[in-house]
């Protein structure tokens, strides 16, 4: 019962994250909303599966999949945002851009 409730909360969080992906004005804030879907939605569904099927093959595979998502999702998001900055997408909701100064100093030397 607790596992079913956690799975429904995970589905709600996935809808909230996708709505943020639709409404945010920038690539970088959209990647923030994507993290809500990855960790808050899918990993909460996997925790619900582990609490629903207590000791079985489902729990073992769900635990392995949860560890895999926790390792790979920040790496993928970081790579995409770094490539977006290097390919010329300007951040809109920002006050100070320090990486541009560092890059110009590196390219001059």
């Amino acid at each position, binding site marked *: 019962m607790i596992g079913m409730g956690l799975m429904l909360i995970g589905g709600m969080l996935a809808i909230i994250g996708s709505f943020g992906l639709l409404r945010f004005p920038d*690539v970088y804030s959209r990647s923030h909303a994507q993290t809500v879907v990855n960790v808050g939605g899918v990993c909460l569904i996997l925790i619900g599966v582990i609490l629903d099927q207590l000791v079985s093959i489902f729990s073992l595979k769900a635990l392995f999949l949860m560890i895999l998502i926790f390792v790979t999702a920040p790496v993928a998001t970081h790579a995409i945002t770094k490539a977006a900055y*290097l390919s010329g997408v300007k951040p809109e909701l920002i006050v100070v851009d320090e990486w541009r100064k560092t890059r110009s100093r590196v390219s001059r030397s």
Partner: protein
Amino acid sequence: MYEYVVYLLAAAVFLCIVRFLRGPTLPDRVIAIDTMSSLVIGIMVALSLYFANSLFLDIAIVYALLSFIGNLVISKYMMGEVRK
């Protein structure tokens, strides 16, 4: 009981498809595709409990690895576009 989770995740996939069609730049579309692959992993987990078949979880593990490698390849392609 498990099919309501599939309905919620399918609605989230629809919102991601709208962002993929409206995205002004290439990284917006890549982020939308990544979110859609995560949601498809969640749909596979819910369907494995609905059909009581644990082979869906194996397919979900392989799909997570393939989407991760695809994201890294696309980001390396976008960085190599600049240095020319």
